């Protein structure tokens, strides 16, 4: 049965930021892997919160605090449902994917890593999924192993299988590469890792808005994601973790909101998930996040994936015919992210020229320096789509690339 099409005009109408000109040119936003734009429902949720029921959560007994607490817990239930977590206590609110990964690296390593143990990541990881592991391996005298990436932009699964052994305690991988757009065979990797007794953390930052996630089906032990890459506010992240691990892990940050009893000599920590939620969270952000997830659900992943797949095709077709353009990776399993460079032009220069035409892309090393070193690309331009982008926008950016190339190589 053919997928029913996404109503692009209706979708775009719900994102007020898209309706503007930049330097008198129509605004084209193609930097969604950095952050997505927000629908009106998310924006009005924030306004409504601060206008009507702003109050600190979990600790008050008055009407407003009750209402804000209920709203936060409602988001927690929605996230649980969105990723099909077994228990609501398995959903922790953090500041971001980076915060979630640091939480696991810092606390899970305390109960699992011994000298000589190994942590496995891949060469396509974001710095946020490299540096925390680098640090804990140094601290615990464990070894950091790196799964190579093939020229296609896919993980070298043969090497992965060779690398796995009883020494590997933690595997931490991205579901989707923020630079290559590659969708990794995460379920298969988790099954392999579990055979050797290793736990797996999935960095789902680039996946949450683009691929339906079922943590029980994947059987991942941890999953980290950010609200702001899924049409939600900045400053809100999620960490999913299997209950048994959360109960064993020591708290990450200490303070108010995560304790039951405190004296100067002793402390009793709260049960999960609150054990891992010290301090006042980004309440408005968490509440608005539910609206973002509802928005995705109302559009539907089927339509989103179909539309974004068309955008990817359009991108690949229009860019691959351009001379002197190098596209990184060629995996057929990818979301609509492409990183590329034009030979002879620094990506910063390309980015500035595109910006002058109202087009927003990301340039530089995309927080994946080791990956770019592998591809011998010191800097790249990344185009990353979301559900509100159109084929016309893709054709416009390709036209601009063509102009730059013609000018450079005349």
């Amino acid at each position: 049965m053919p997928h029913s099409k996404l109503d692009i005009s209706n979708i775009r109408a719900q994102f007020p930021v898209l309706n503007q000109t930049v330097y008198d040119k129509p605004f084209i936003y193609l930097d969604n892997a950095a952050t997505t734009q927000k629908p009106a429902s998310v924006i009005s949720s924030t306004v409504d919160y601060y206008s009507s029921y702003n109050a600190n959560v979990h600790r008050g007994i008055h009407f407003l605090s009750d209402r804000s607490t209920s709203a936060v817990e409602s988001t927690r239930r929605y996230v649980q449902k969105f990723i099909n977590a077994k228990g609501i206590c398995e959903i922790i609110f953090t500041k971001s994917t980076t915060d979630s990964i640091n939480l696991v690296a810092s606390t899970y390593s305390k109960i699992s890593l011994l000298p000589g143990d190994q942590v496995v990541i891949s060469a396509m990881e974001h710095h946020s999924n490299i540096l925390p592991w680098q640090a804990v391996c140094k601290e615990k005298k464990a070894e950091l192993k790196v799964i190579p990436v093939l020229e296609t932009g896919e993980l070298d699964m043969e090497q992965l299988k060779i690398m796995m052994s009883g020494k590997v305690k933690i595997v931490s991988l991205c579901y989707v590469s923020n630079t290559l757009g590659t969708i990794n065979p995460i379920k298969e990797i988790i099954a392999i890792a579990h055979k050797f007794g290793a736990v797996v953390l999935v960095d789902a930052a680039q996946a949450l808005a683009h691929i339906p996630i079922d943590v029980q089906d994947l059987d991942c032990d941890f999953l980290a994601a950010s609200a702001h890459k899924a049409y939600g506010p900045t400053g809100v992240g999620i960490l999913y973790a299997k209950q048994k691990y959360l109960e064993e892990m020591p708290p990450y940050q200490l303070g108010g909101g995560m304790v039951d009893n405190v004296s100067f000599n002793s402390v009793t920590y709260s049960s999960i998930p609150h054990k891992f939620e010290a301090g006042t969270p980004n309440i408005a952000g968490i509440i608005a996040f539910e609206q973002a997830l509802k928005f995705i659900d109302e559009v539907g992943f089927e339509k989103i994936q179909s539309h974004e797949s068309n955008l990817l095709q359009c991108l690949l077709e229009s860019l691959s015919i351009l001379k002197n353009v190098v596209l990184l990776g060629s995996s057929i399993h990818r979301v609509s992210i492409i990183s590329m460079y034009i030979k002879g032009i620094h990506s910063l220069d390309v980015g500035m020229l595109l910006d002058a035409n109202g087009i927003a892309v990301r340039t530089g090393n995309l927080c994946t320096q080791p990956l770019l070193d592998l591809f011998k690309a010191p800097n790249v331009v990344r185009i990353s789509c979301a559900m509100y982008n159109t084929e016309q926008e893709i054709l416009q950016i390709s036209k601009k690339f063509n102009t730059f190339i013609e000018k450079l190589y005349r």
Partner: protein
Amino acid sequence: MTISSSKLFKGIGQIQDEIIREFKYLQGDREAAINYIMEIGEKLPPMLPLRKTEHNIVYGCVSNVWLSYEVRDGLIHFEGDSDANVTKGLLAILIAILSRQKLDAIINANLYFITEIGLLNYIGQQRSFGLANVVKHMKTIALTEKNKIRRRRRRKGTV
């Protein structure tokens, strides 16, 4: 940018006024301004690889920037390079203004052309920090050379 070869006799102010006049022709067209800066950068002679040392890197720039200099007849001759054309263009402009000027003129230079042509609007926040770093670097070089001269004179007892 047509930088006259008789620049030796032009002060920092005169060169800046020339630059301001050139940019006025662009009438605020952003893409034209960026292309223009890139064209200026294309004309900047490349730096020899052996001069692209760690010592000559200017930190705090979004692209790689190298800056070196020589002192000839009491004047500083700057040389710069970058892997990005817009950065090269900015370097070329700064070198055109500050190279072969007296040390005090460099140290005290008021680079008003930056505001006059709205340069920071064209190049954005990140590159603005980089530009400020390069200017600071060039002025520090001039100050360093001035201090060297002072020390030499003190040793000779002429101060």
